């Protein structure tokens, strides 16, 4: 999955610049969470945002790591006015760097945390409600892209819009498959989607089968077994 996620980063410098312009930002960055909670910067616009992302994820603290951990939007109007104990390693290290307003929008679905979109402004300027809405839509679109990036090699003509992934039955099935395969939720969702693609069905349909216990995932080559009671 890590390799697939990295592919998303290639050839997207323009995208970062376009997003920065659209959000009237001095810097925009996207970092993704890979295995073992290692975080990797996949794209950024502006030297300040590259430096800031590296610093946050090297030190393991800051609004970005907080947004990833909590799954909530984190907004800091002015980093220079934040009390020193909040991020004791990060704040002194920023001395002299031009980062003021920081807004972090988590990428992910529920407990699946895929990364974070960070918007920087200097000097400090709060995001307007409309800009914050745009950033949330962008974060949701990026979430869809990251998930699709993880599906390389089994692309369909008409990819399912990310909103389909917001049905309760899909989340329930993700939890069930995660328990069946003893894998993290993110991988369980990929397995659900992979199965849907390879059987030319929608993720919702597969999820309904899993939740109704008509379909069970098993960690072998076929990936599937009939429900426990009907086995053998």
């Amino acid at each position, binding site marked *: 999955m890590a390799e697939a996620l990295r592919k998303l980063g290639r050839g997207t410098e323009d995208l970062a610049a376009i997003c920065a312009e659209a959000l009237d930002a001095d810097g925009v960055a996207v970092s993704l969470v890979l295995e073992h909670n290692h975080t990797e910067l996949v794209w950024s616009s502006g030297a300040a945002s590259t430096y800031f992302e590296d610093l946050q994820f090297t030190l393991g603290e800051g609004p970005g790591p907080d947004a990833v951990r*909590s*799954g*909530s939007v984190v907004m*800091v109007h002015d980093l220079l006015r934040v009390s020193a104990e909040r991020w004791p390693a990060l704040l002194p290290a920023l001395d002299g760097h031009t980062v003021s307003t920081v807004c972090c929008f988590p990428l992910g679905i529920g407990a699946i945390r895929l990364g974070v979109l960070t918007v920087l402004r200097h000097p400090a300027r709060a995001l307007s*409600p409309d800009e914050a809405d745009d950033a949330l839509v962008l974060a*949701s679109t990026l979430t869809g892209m990251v998930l699709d990036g993880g599906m390389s090699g089994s692309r369909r003509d008409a990819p399912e819009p990310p909103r389909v992934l*917001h049905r309760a039955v899909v989340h329930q099935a*993700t*939890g069930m498959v*995660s328990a069946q395969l003893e894998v993290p939720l993110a991988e369980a969702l990929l397995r659900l989607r992979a199965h849907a693609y390879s059987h030319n069905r929608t993720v919702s349909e597969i999820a309904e089968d899993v939740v109704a216990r008509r379909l069970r995932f098993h960690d072998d080559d076929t990936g599937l077994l009939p429900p426990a009671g009907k086995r053998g």
Partner: protein
Amino acid sequence: MTREQRLAETFVEVADSLIDDFDIIDFLQRLSARCVELLDVTAAGILLADSHDDLQIIAASDEHTRLLELFALQHDQGPCVECYRSGAARTGIDLADPATAAQWPVFAPRALATGFTTTHALPLRLRNRVIGALNLFHTKQSTLGDEDITLGQALADVATIAILQQRTLEQSHTEKGQLQTALTSRIVIEQVKGILAERWQLPLDDAFDLLRKYARSHQLRLVELAQQVIDGTADAALIVGEAGHRPGAG
């Protein structure tokens, strides 16, 4: 208890709940249950618009999958979608009326099949914008009187206030950010329902109750407990065991 007494009790409960670190999902679930009592309906649910303007169910008076799916159907059609888009209440909708079926060909028959005959949708309003809807269902033909509608709207307003009162990390107070946090919490709970249901071979419908009972008796927020189950730091066997289910009994 008279309705006035129940209403007074509800408002005391609301005032008690909206403290520093309240549990938004548990709060909205209780509020949905109160709607059922106070408005004399069969089921109630609270839907919120996500960043794509699709309505998502955030809490319901009961957590049966059949009911949750009925709310979920309304991401693109049904009275809640109309209510959300227009900002106006839609009340006394007769689900058996052919005109209703023609208007919402997926939603109306499914609602009827679930046993409901009437539905109402009231907007969750925030100043000049609408953030979601309160959806009510009846198993008998009924209309909401003016008083009922006023009360229902007050309860919908309480839901809106609660959602915007959630304590988030940075107190960002961006409205959409608050909605997103509430929606994320709901998704985490659905994922954990799946984990518990599979690991202990429970019906999905039971998983929410177990989680909620354990969270309440241990004074944990639902979403915190859910996150602990996912992280493997909560003893999920305890959650299932305490509720009288024997793990592995199926």
